[in-house]
């Protein structure tokens, strides 16, 4: 187990490094000059432009710029926003809880709806609940996130007046955005769980358990479900990463504060330090999530543990 954690951890560090190199290269190669975006093109003199460029270290060769940037990151210095000179790290730290809350609640909604519907639809195959589950799956996968969000606003804020349409003030404003993302996630999980549950139900060990005379309930929820969840856990882990990415759209639609909104704005303004800071930060989160998925995988499925040991 410890060995598994360590090998995964080493791989994770590589992934974080790779992600930061990639982002740096992409931002470096994108057309457009950040210095010209910062200064008013009509009044800036060439001298002002050159000074600012030197001040930001943008006149250095690529590898030196990258080394400086990466070294600063490791020391926890994520630099300053080019747009309003706010330090990047405190900005991320300030806005991260809102995004984490959104991701947590939407994961919860996705997992609850996904697993419940997935299992029930497999057990009651071709019944009413199966049709509902398949519709939810189709809806979640095929609807664009912003569209779902706007539909929910029209129904639950404008028509019914139950929840606020926007903002990030308290729990009630969290429900619609989390439901929007949660529905997308649920779509994936329903299909995954339903399929793997159907596969498991037809395996010989279920027949053996029936022959042993166990109740159908024990067989389904005690044995089949546990086996069906193994592939589902992997999907759920990846999905939480997707949900984190989905906050970019959802936070904009619902005018929420959060790191998704920060990165959307920073990309538009070509605010390099902010984009890099957020990506560095989120790549760490992704990696930690993956690590957790791998560990829980081993926890649910003893075969994985044994495989690592030998």
């Amino acid at each position, binding site marked *: 187990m410890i060995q598994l954690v360590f090998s995964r951890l080493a791989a994770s560090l590589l992934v974080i490094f790779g992600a930061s190199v990639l982002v740096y290269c992409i931002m470096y190669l994108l*057309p*457009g*000059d950040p210095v*010209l*975006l910062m*200064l*008013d*093109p*009509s*009044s800036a003199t060439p001298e*002002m432009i050159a000074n600012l460029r030197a001040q930001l270290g943008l006149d250095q060769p690529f590898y030196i710029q990258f080394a400086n940037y990466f070294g600063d990151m490791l020391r926890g210095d994520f630099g300053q926003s080019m747009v*309003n*000179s*706010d330090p990047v790290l405190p*900005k991320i730290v*300030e806005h991260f*809880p*809102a995004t*984490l*809350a*959104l991701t*947590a*609640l939407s*994961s*919860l909604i996705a*997992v*609850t709806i996904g697993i419940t519907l997935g299992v029930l639809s497999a057990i009651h195959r071709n019944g009413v609940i199966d049709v509902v589950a398949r519709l939810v799956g189709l809806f979640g996968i095929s609807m664009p996130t*912003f569209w779902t*969000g*706007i539909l929910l*606003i*029209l129904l639950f*804020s*404008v028509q019914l*007046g139950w929840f*606020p*349409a*926007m*903002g*990030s*003030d*308290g*729990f009630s*404003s*969290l429900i619609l955005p*989390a439901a929007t993302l949660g529905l997308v996630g649920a779509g994936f999980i329903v299909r995954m769980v339903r399929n793997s549950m159907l596969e498991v139900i037809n395996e010989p060990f279920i027949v053996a358990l029936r022959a042993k005379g166990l109740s159908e309930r024990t067989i389904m*929820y*005690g044995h089949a479900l*546990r086996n069906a969840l193994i592939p589902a856990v992997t999907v759920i882990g990846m999905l939480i990463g997707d949900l984190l990415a989905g906050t970019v759209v959802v936070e*904009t*639609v*619902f*005018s929420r*504060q959060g790191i998704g909104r*920060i990165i959307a*704005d920073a990309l*538009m*303004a*070509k605010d390099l330090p902010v984009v890099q800071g957020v990506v560095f930060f989120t790549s760490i989160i992704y990696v930690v999530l993956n690590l957790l998925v791998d560990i829980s995988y081993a926890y*649910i499925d003893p075969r994985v543990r044994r495989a690592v040991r030998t």
Partner: protein
Amino acid sequence: MNRSISWIKAVALAAVLAMVLSGCGAASGGKTSGAAQASAGGGQAGKAEGGNLTFGLATSPDTLDPHRSGLAVAVRAIRTIYDNLVVQLPDGSIKPWLAKEWSVSKDGKSYTFKLREDVKFHDGTPFNAEAVKYNLDRVIDPATKAANSLALIRPYSSSEVIDEYTIKVNLDAPSQAFLGNLSQALLGIVSPTAAKKYGDQLGKNPVGTGSYTFVKWDENADIVVAKNKDYNWGPETVENKGAPYIDTITFKIVPEEATRIGSVQSKQVLAAESVPPQNIAALKSDPNQQLLQANTVGLPYTLFFNLRRAPWDNVKVRQAVQSAVDVESIVKTLYLGNYERAWSALSPGILGYDKALEGSITPDINHANQLLDEQGWVKGADGIRVKDGKKLSLRYVDGSPNREKRNDIAAIIQQQLKPLGIAVDIVITKDIASVIYQNWDYDLYGNSQVNSDPNALYAFYHTSAEGERPTLSGLSDPKIDQLLEQGAVETDSAKRVDIYSQIQKYLIEQAVILPIYVFPYTVAASKNVEGIQFDSLGYPLFNDVRIQP
């Protein structure tokens, strides 16, 4: 089965985490906006006082430092915090505000202002001639990095403090636009104490003399201003010259238009700006809502040909495009009859607007084809015209995102020019700074400007000086240069009207531009919100606002 119990535990933990974090987020995010609904204090109908006006903004302001701002959206908030020396009424006349009276020297190059003596900045700094001098000098100081305010203050050169409440302002050249420009929010008067203290962070800590004082700004969430209880110097554009009736205004930043309108309809905010055309009809028929509309004044949304690049330096080729583009149907299709179509380089309502241009251009595809045929552009096998082995293509650049459906205008024009044999290459980019202003890599590019004086044309059509930024059209005609120079200084307003009408006629006849639409500033508000006014440029004013319970 203890495994399933740990699943439940994990799920419960996630739920608790979500709740705790959203609570934290709200606590650090802002408390004042918590209720969102206005809690109007008692009083009889028409006399309601107190309450919080929530107002949805379409984009995030760049800064609340008026001298450094370049965005119209920032002006909605800036207007509440700062006052100006003078105010311009919708009929174009200039009236006192922080300046009680003024006189102009015979040569038109210096203005002497007598200032009000009872005005104080929000931080207690007294308002006087020194403060005004500091402000004017601050705008032209390169260290301020002034944006649009710099163009407004020109040809300012210096000012002299005559006595505590008298200031003499000197110009390099006479200017008929100068006094009107002093009424614009971007030349609002900031507290010298605060400006010195905060430097380039004044935009986050704004201090003025306005009817509202700054409370806080949470990035991407909201800007809060509160009533200035000592306020007693409102301009003629508002009825209430004293302190505002309501306690606070919370400007909420809501970029997604469906959400913005949804939050007015659900009463989460009491008013929101920039109503999309498709929602206007529904709002007008909603008994709980009202729709307020003010046409903005200045330069309408106009497409500029880049005259520096062939073949667009040829007037006949430009005229062909002018005849082929059906502006009427573009504006009707995209804005459903809610936007007015523009006919001239100026918008209606501004001094010198030439009404005679209305209806002057009608789409005529045969004429357009004929013009191109005459110029030797022949249709090739693919339907695109060719001359000397070069295809007739037009690089149409627009900024992202699709503000006021401007990307859609590009797409329609592309379709309309196809039958004419012109290949329109649409480039949507956020990087306008380098594509347009640095590399001049466009044939057609659209822009608009809010302004109170026809002298705004100068910056767009006067030949640019050596080393200065070229104009969007690249027009360089001595005749027009001369007219623009005369227009800037002419004191006889009938002569001024004539000068600007000549310029407008020329720009249409020479097809330098394609004017598209006049932008109406729209606000959707709950019926119980009364008294939102607009200034002469179409910006909202909140001094008279009352929220009925």
